[in-house]
């Protein structure tokens, strides 16, 4: 089979690099296996990985881990993209509505709209997280993730706001997100929003 011969020849052609300076970063490999970020970037990473035996071994390790990703999380990028799409659509809809209608934009039915703090905000002593209510939501789980994606703090609430005990979290860069658990057992998720926790005096 010609495909087999091509495969044999191509695999013989692959080499391990002596200098890994040009290799894809571990973060780029993660973005590739978790399908996060622009497709063009991921294709460039893939192009390198499939011509570099050292990167391919690392890619295979991450692929094995990524295959265990819970279904809900696996769909998160798609949900996040859908949330952005819906939010933009809702924004356009709100923009064209008469100003005296008194309507407020609500979180879309299949997502949780974050209100405050704004993306990239810096917080210190008082850190309140606020989001839109999701119809049919029984409770919400709030997670603060560190740069490595580890949960630095998690809490459940029935409210649509929560105060973070900043004293238990080290200063640094974080992202937060909210999951709403609906009455029928399904979940609605927000996008991840970055914030910075400042060194306390």
């Amino acid at each position, binding site marked *: 089979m*010609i*495909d087999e*011969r*091509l*495969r044999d*020849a*191509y*695999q*013989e*052609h*692959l080499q*391990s690099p002596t200098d*890994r300076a040009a*290799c894809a970063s*571990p*973060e780029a*490999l*993660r973005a*590739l*296996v*978790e*399908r996060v970020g622009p*497709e063009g970037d*991921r*294709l*460039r990473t*893939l*192009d390198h990985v*499939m*011509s570099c035996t*050292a990167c*391919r*071994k*690392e890619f*295979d*390790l*991450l*692929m*094995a*881990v*990524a*295959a*265990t*990703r*819970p279904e*809900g*999380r696996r769909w998160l990028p798609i949900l996040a993209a859908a949330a952005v799409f819906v939010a933009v659509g809702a924004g356009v809809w709100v923009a064209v509505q008469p100003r005296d209608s008194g309507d407020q934009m609500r979180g879309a039915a299949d997502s949780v709209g974050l209100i405050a703090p704004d993306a990239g905000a810096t917080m210190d002593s008082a850190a309140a997280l606020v989001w839109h209510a999701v119809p049919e939501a029984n409770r919400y789980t709030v997670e603060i*993730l560190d740069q*490595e*994606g*580890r*949960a630095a703090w998690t809490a459940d609430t029935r409210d649509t706001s929560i105060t973070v005990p900043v004293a238990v979290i080290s200063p640094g860069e974080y992202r937060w997100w909210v999951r709403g658990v609906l009455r029928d057992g399904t979940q609605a998720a927000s996008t991840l929003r970055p914030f910075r926790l400042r060194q306390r005096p």
Partner: protein
Amino acid sequence: MGSPGDTLSPALDAVVSRYAGMVRAVGHRYRLADDDLEELMQDVRIRLWRSRGSGEKIRQSPSSYVYRTAMSAALDLIRRRRARREDRVDVDRPSGEATFGTAPPADVALSRAELAATVGRAVDSLIDSRRPVVRMYLTGYTREEIARLLGWSEAKTRNLLYRGLEDVRRCLRGWNIDAETQP
């Protein structure tokens, strides 16, 4: 806090074993070496022990938390190896174990090396949209794995792959190389 060998151990063992089983189940598909898996699981064990505190918390760790812990551990493993410039060489047989009569004649080996280099050049010449797909396929992944990784439909993947492979064959024919008849 005690050591992983104290009362936390049964909870840790249960969570880590269950997770290791999941990774092992798919690991062979991705040529995951046993010692990579062991090193990864040891790191996951330590991270869960440090972050979850109690056996009950460990037992109740959501799968998304364990997944994020494992992904983070895998990235750190990669960073550590890069920092140590460790690049293990996989060999088919232990060093010093000689095998006689299996090496191809020198002219055949040279032809194979030339064919490999030529196929490499042909793949390098592909357009950007087809090249990564063809590389992945020739590296040994299936069409379904490519589609899943990139989030593409089966039809889109097949289209780009077959067009790319045809480009490679056309290129080789233009250089008077026939991969069917090469040694």
